[in-house]
């Protein structure tokens, strides 16, 4: 049985019963942990990274208990041609791409900075979008976003349908077959495992600790803090080095802000991209069109009421 956090409890009761808790003791208790309530972002200063992979190993070590423990043999899934078995359990030491056992990896780019040919190394993982499609479009609520801006996939609820990966602009979540809830439902008919990705060490943050990758980095490449402060800092660094920013506006804004000494479209050409290896393209806000339709929704009931009143008015006129 999982413990429901106090904040979660307050929000559930608020939403269901519509209780006004603002002035109650519960609301005051929730405010006692203010840091968790505001969106936190990370700043990744690419020019500082030396590509030592300390962060990668720290992430693997720190999150090892969350990694999948698939049961074999895997259930036969239909149709086999459309439901590929994705098994990383024998390849847990792969660190050159994202996998269910590797939520962070280092990309390499040979670039020219001030006439000098250098190699830049870029830590890559989930961007923790401000309005994350992986969370919002998950049909079961298995992916969740927390008030502090992180998004994570609940491995007890995920069915491994991979929709989150399809709708993610960077194809971040990675699937492991043979684990999770689908095994207890209709394993051959629906689902195919569990999706895994960086959860920004949500459990560490809950305890007031820093994510493992940030803690382990010998070069202090990453910092974490309130998003507006992180953005200020990012712009300050970018100004100092004549650099560029990625993640501020991508997909409508993310909670991962990169600063680079070279433009990101150049970096994007130099890094290896593909399956499990995210790009650095500009990304438009993928949830924006849905948001606009949702806002237009307000006219629907008004139009319905007006149409009905119009009809009734006409009918009463006819009767007279």
């Amino acid at each position, binding site marked *: 049985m999982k413990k*429901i956090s106090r*904040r*979660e*409890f307050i*929000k*559930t009761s608020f*939403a*269901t019963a519509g209780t006004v808790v603002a002035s109650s003791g519960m609301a005051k208790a929730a405010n006692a942990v203010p840091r968790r309530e505001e969106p936190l972002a990370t700043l990744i200063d690419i020019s500082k990274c030396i590509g030592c992979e300390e962060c990668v190993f720290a992430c693997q070590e720190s999150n090892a208990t969350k990694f999948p423990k698939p049961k074999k043999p895997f259930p036969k899934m239909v*149709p086999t041609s*459309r*439901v590929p078995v994705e098994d990383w359990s024998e390849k847990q030491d792969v660190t050159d791409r994202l996998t269910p056992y590797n939520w962070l990896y280092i990309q390499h780019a040979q670039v020219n900075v001030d006439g000098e040919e250098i190699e830049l190394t870029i830590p890559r993982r989930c961007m923790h979008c*401000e*309005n994350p499609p992986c969370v*919002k*479009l998950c*049909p*079961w*609520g298995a992916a*969740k*976003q*927390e*008030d502090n801006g992180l998004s994570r996939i*609940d491995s007890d*609820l995920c069915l491994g*349908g*991979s*929709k989150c990966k*399809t*709708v993610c602009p960077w194809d971040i979540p990675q699937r492991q077959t043979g684990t999770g809830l689908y095994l207890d439902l209709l394993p051959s008919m*629906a689902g195919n495992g569990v999706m895994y990705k960086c959860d920004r060490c949500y459990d560490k943050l809950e305890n007031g600790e820093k994510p493992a990758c940030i803690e382990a980095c010998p070069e202090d490449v990453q910092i974490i803090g309130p998003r507006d402060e992180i953005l200020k800092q990012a712009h300050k660094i970018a100004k100092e080095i004549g650099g560029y920013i990625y993640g501020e506006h991508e997909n*409508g804004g993310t909670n991962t802000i990169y600063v680079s000494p070279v433009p990101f479209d150049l970096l994007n050409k130099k890094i290896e991209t593909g399956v499990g290896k995210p790009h650095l393209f500009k990304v438009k806000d*993928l*949830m924006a*069109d*849905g*948001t606009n*339709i*949702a806002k*237009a*929704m307000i*006219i*629907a*009931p008004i*139009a*319905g*009421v007006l*149409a*009905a*009143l119009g*009809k*009734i008015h006409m*009918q009463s006129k006819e009767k007279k």
Partner: protein
Amino acid sequence: MKKTLRIRNLIYFFTLFFIALSGFAQMPIFKRYYIADIPGLGWLAQFYVTHYIHYISAVIFIGFATYVMVDFFFVKIKYDKFSFVAYTKIASIIGLIVTGTLMMIKNLSGTPFSAGFIIFLDISHLGLCMILISLTAVDLIKGQIKLFSNEITK
């Protein structure tokens, strides 16, 4: 009157058809089961497209439902003998609109609801949809609703 009822029924069924189809497409099933491979149905596997279609048909459906509700309050013609099934259908439609609207709010930027409440919304929305579809299917089979004729039998 009969003509209005027939038009009403047609709007109701077509909106309900698209809303249900695009709703089921929110689950990753149409590609898996080759339905999106049928020419003309490729859009069923495009999650953003089905997301918009679901929203747009919801706008039409809510507009239509409010029209019917207001009309119902003012013109009480032969509506008084609703069966239990009819009341269940009305309740599930209201439930679908309420849960659906809350889900649209959830999809705006921010975290207005708890994770547990979102799961409740997801599951109840699907459950209410299954109830409505089953009852409508039974009515269609029993011939109590005639889609393309002028009559509505009681």
